[in-house]
């Protein structure tokens, strides 16, 4: 699935990922391939992604929103 993490200042991440963990407003959750379409707001916390080579990356965020539509994920955050 294709992931984009964007802040008002720059694009932080763009590319294929295997797994993403997000700090949702109601609690953390995880998305894998073929996840149902979802729109969720995000709280303060850490985004963890695993790219195609199973390498982990962490992003600390203050809040934002995520949309997943047909294996295309857009994460908008205020700051990283």
């Amino acid at each position, binding site marked *: 699935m294709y992931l*984009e993490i*964007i*802040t*008002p*200042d*720059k*694009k932080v991440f763009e590319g294929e990922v295997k797994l993403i963990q997000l700090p*949702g*407003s*109601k609690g953390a*959750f995880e998305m894998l391939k073929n996840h*149902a*379409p*979802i*729109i*969720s*707001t995000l709280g303060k916390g850490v985004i963890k992604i695993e790219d195609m080579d199973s390498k982990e990356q962490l992003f600390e965020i203050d809040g934002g*929103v995520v*949309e997943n*539509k*047909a294996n295309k994920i*857009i994460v*908008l955050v205020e700051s990283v």
Partner: protein
Amino acid sequence: MAGLKEIRTRIASVKTTRQVTSAMKMVSAAKLKKAQDAILQIRPYAEKLHEILLSLSASLENVEDSVYTQDRAPEKVLVILVTSNRGLCGGFNTNISKKAIELVTSKYEQQLRLDKLDFLCIGKQGERYLKHRGFKVVANENSLFDELTFDNVAKIAEGAMKAFEAKEYDRIELVYNQFKNAAMQEQTAEQFLPVEMEEQDDNAANYDFIYEPSKEYIIKELIPRSLKIQFYKALLDSHAAEHGARMTAMHQATDNATTLIGDLTLQYNKARQAAITGEILEIVGGAEALKG
């Protein structure tokens, strides 16, 4: 024909002016680069946010539950005019101020007559233009350009949103220069509040989204954020456009100075030649007379 000395002085003064304008051009070019980067960086964010809002509103039957979408009869109108603090940028400020006046005299003629139309100016040039023509400028935010950060801009946007919420204004318009490229700006007037939910193609509605925590909560969260981003984007646009306009104006001024110097030099050489010819004639005439 003007005297030699006068022409020489003029050439010198035009040369100094050219130096100034060409320096200003350089400065603007550097600032433009920075401003342009900023606007290019925020665009993807703004677009994606807009996209998400669209997919949200597509699945929502009545968006009326947000305070920012209430479409009231426009009794009191606020127009936010974004110009620059400094001049010397060609028609940049005049064009956009004219656009604002055109907007209020056509769309909001009635409110204008009833004195229900206020201006908020960001930028000294627009403020002066409007005040001079007798429009009601209620406030200015001219110091914003000293430090154009998201936080500062968000404060102004919040102020406008609060005023709309409190029903001080029923409609808020945003008039600014949109940055196209260094030589081109597009005068844009867009409705800031209430938020207009566009009719979208139903392809977004095909997705059966899960909403976390709830649709209403997300809408409530996203609309203010989107408004602030929209406002910030408008200001970045105007900022980049300003430097672009100034760069172009100064480039032209430098070119004009160069042409002027060329003309003056030609005139100077002609005058010098004429003087020499005159002197030779005098000498020859004198020698002839002596020969007698």
